[in-house]
C-alpha cells in the first residue's frame, strides 16, 4: 500500500463510560483506498471505537481525549451540525443488520438516493437515476426494476448490497463497516467481501472494517489492528500479522480459525474465558489474566514494541521473544 494520503488518523482516542475508559488511547490510521480491519472479541471496545470516530457514541459515553482527523479536520471538535454535514457524504457507514437497516415502507431506489437528497447534492430525479447506477454497481440484476421494490421483496444478501449502495452513493472518503457480513451466510459473505474489495478500488474509498472474524480479515484487509480490552495490542500489515503474530492474543485469535487439516477428533480451538468487564480490567497488560505467558513483568503496561524494525508491525507485549513457548504448549486451549 502506498502511504500516499492519510484519510483517517486517530490519535490516543479515549472514550469513557462512567469512570472506565472503555476505549483507552486508541491510535490507528487509514490511508486512501486501504482496508484496515479492527479485530477483537465482543466487548473489547471495537464498536465503541467506531461510534466514537463518527460522533455516534451513546449518550452515556464521553470522549475523554485524543483526536480523530478526517482529511486533517478533527472530528472531535465538530459540532453536531457539522457532523451531520459530513455523515453519509464524506464519512459513511454500513451497519450490522442489513434487513433491519432498510425502511420497510420505502422503495429501495429512494433509500439508496436518500443521502444525495438530504445533502442536497442532487435533485430527486437525478439522485434516483444515480441510485439505479449504484444498484447496478453493487451487482443487483435489473436495477431499474429492483429500485421500485420494497426491502421485503429482497433477500438478505440483496439487502446488504443495497446497504452498500446507500453507503457508497455519495462516494465517501471513508467507509466504516461494522460487521458487514456477520448476519449473512457464508457464500453471500464471500460475495459481499469481493464486492467491497472491488468498489474500494473503483471509488477509492478507505474502509475501516470492524470484525471478529479472522477469515474475513485475511480475505479483505490490507492492515490489521487487534484490539483487546480497549487497547490496540498489535497492528501491522495483514501478511506480516498472519505470518508472524507477535502478541499472544493475536496468536490465540489466529488459532481459533478452524483448519481443514485436522482429524475429525480435533477440537475447535477457543480462547479460554472472555474479555473481563471494564470495571475489572487488570492493571498492567490487560490480557495477562488469560495469557499463557503471563508473569510478574506483565503487571506493568507494555509499550508498543516494534516487531519488524521499521514500525509497520508493532505489538504491545513484554514477551515477544518468548512467543515460541506458546507453540510448545501445543493445543493451547
Amino acid at each position: 500500500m502506498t502511504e500516499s494520503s492519510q484519510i483517517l488518523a486517530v490519535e490516543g482516542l479515549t472514550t469513557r463510560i462512567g469512570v472506565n475508559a472503555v476505549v483507552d488511547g486508541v491510535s490507528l490510521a487509514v490511508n486512501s483506498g486501504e482496508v484496515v480491519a479492527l479485530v477483537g472479541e465482543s466487548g473489547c471496545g471495537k464498536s465503541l471505537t467506531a461510534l466514537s470516530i463518527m460522533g455516534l457514541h451513546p449518550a452515556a459515553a464521553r470522549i475523554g481525549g485524543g483526536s480523530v482527523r478526517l482529511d486533517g479536520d478533527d472530528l472531535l471538535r465538530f459540532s453536531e451540525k457539522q457532523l451531520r454535514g459530513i455523515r453519509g457524504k464524506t464519512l459513511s457507514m454500513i451497519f450490522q443488520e442489513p434487513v433491519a437497516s432498510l425502511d420497510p415502507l420505502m422503495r429501495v431506489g429512494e433509500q439508496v438516493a436518500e443521502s444525495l437528497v438530504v445533502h442536497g447534492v442532487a435533485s430527486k430525479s437525478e439522485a434516483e437515476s444515480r441510485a439505479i447506477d449504484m444498484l447496478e454497481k453493487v451487482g443487483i440484476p435489473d436495477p431499474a426494476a429492483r429500485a421500485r421494490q420494497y426491502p421485503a421483496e429482497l433477500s438478505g444478501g440483496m439487502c446488504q448490497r443495497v446497504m452498500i449502495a446507500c453507503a457508497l452513493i455519495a462516494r465517501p472518503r471513508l467507509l466504516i463497516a461494522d460487521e458487514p457480513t456477520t448476519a449473512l451466510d457464508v457464500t453471500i459473505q464471500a460475495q459481499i467481501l469481493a464486492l467491497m474489495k472491488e468498489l474500494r478500488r473503483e471509488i477509492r474509498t478507505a474502509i475501516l472494517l470492524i470484525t471478529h472474524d479472522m477469515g474475513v480479515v485475511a480475505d479483505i484487509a490490507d492492515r490489521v489492528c487487534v484490539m483487546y480490552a480497549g487497547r490496540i495490542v498489535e497492528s501491522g500489515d495483514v501478511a506480516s500479522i498472519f505470518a508472524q503474530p507477535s502478541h499472544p492474543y493475536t496468536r490465540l485469535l489466529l488459532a481459533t480459525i478452524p483448519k481443514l487439516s485436522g482429524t475429525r477428533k480435533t477440537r475447535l480451538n477457543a480462547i479460554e474465558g472472555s474479555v473481563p468487564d471494564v470495571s475489572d480490567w487488570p492493571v498492567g497488560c490487560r490480557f495477562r489474566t488469560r495469557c499463557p505467558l503471563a508473569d510478574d513483568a506483565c503487571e506493568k503496561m507494555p509499550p508498543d514494541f516494534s516487531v519488524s524494525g521499521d514500525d509497520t508491525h508493532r505489538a504491545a507485549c513484554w514477551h515477544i521473544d518468548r512467543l515460541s513457548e506458546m507453540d510448545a504448549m501445543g493445543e493451547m486451549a
Partner: protein
Amino acid sequence: MSATIDKSPAPARRFAGLRREIRGMRAVMPFVLIFAAFVLLALLAPLVAPLDPNSQNLLGRLKPPGTTARGIFYLLGTDNLGRDLLSRLIYGARISLSVAILSVVLSGTAGTILGMAAGLARGWTETVIMRLADIVLSVPAVLLAIIMVAVLGPGFANVVLVLALTRWPRYARVAYGQTLSVANMPYVRLARFMGAKTPRILLIHILPNIIGAIIVVATLEFGLMVLFEAGLSFLGLGVQPPTPSWGAMLSTGRAYVATAWWIAAFPGACLFLLILSVNLIGDHLRDRLDPKSR
C-alpha cells in the same frame, strides 16, 4: 444506463395484492356495504329524502310506519310534530357522520402529532404531553364532554371541538408507543446517520410505519364518536333542534315509547347498524394492519 423507469410490470401482478385484500374482506363485506349506504344517504340526502325533514304536519302526528296522511306516504311514520321519520333519519345520518369524521380527523391529527413529538423528543416534551394525555384519559370522557359543552354552549362546531379535545390522548398514546419502537429501528438510525433532519425522519420514515396502528384506532374511535354525538344530542347538548340528529330523535321518542315505538326504534336501529359496521370494519383492519395479531 438509462434512467427511464419501465412503467409496465404486468398489470395483472401489480393488482394481485389488492385483489387478495378484497377477497380477505369477504367476511366484513356486508358491513362495508351498510357503512357505504349510510355515507351515500348522507351525501345524497336532499335527493333521496322523500320530504323536507323539518316540515311539520300537525294533523299527521305520531302516525305509524306505512300510513298515508293527506296524500303523503310515510314509510317509517311520523314523529310528535308530524315530521317524516325517514327523511329525518336520512338527514340525521349527515350529522352523525360529519361529527364523527371531523372529530376523528381533528383528534387523530392532533394526537398523532403530539404522540410522535413525545416519542421522538423524549425529555420534558414527553413528560408534559403524555402526562397531560393521562390526565385527560383519567376523567370519564362523557363527563368531560358534558362539562365542556355546558361551558362552551351546544352546537355542531362545539360538539366536534369537545370530542376532539377529549379523544386526542387515544391517538397520542398509540403514536407515542409506536414512535418509541420505530425510532430505535436501525433504519431510522441509519437515516439519521445519513444526514436526514428530524422533520424528514418523522414524515418519511416514522409516520408511514405507524400509520396502520393509527388508522385502526381511528376506525374504532369513529363508532364511539357516533355514539358520543348521539349521547350529547340525547341530553340536549348536541346539535340543536330542529336539525335532525339520531340522538335527539331517540330522546324525543323516549316520551312516546309506549304509544309510538317507531320514533325511538328507527334512530336506535340506525345507530346500532352504523356503529356495529364501523366496529367490525375496525376489527378487520386491526387484524390486517396490526403486526402483533398477524
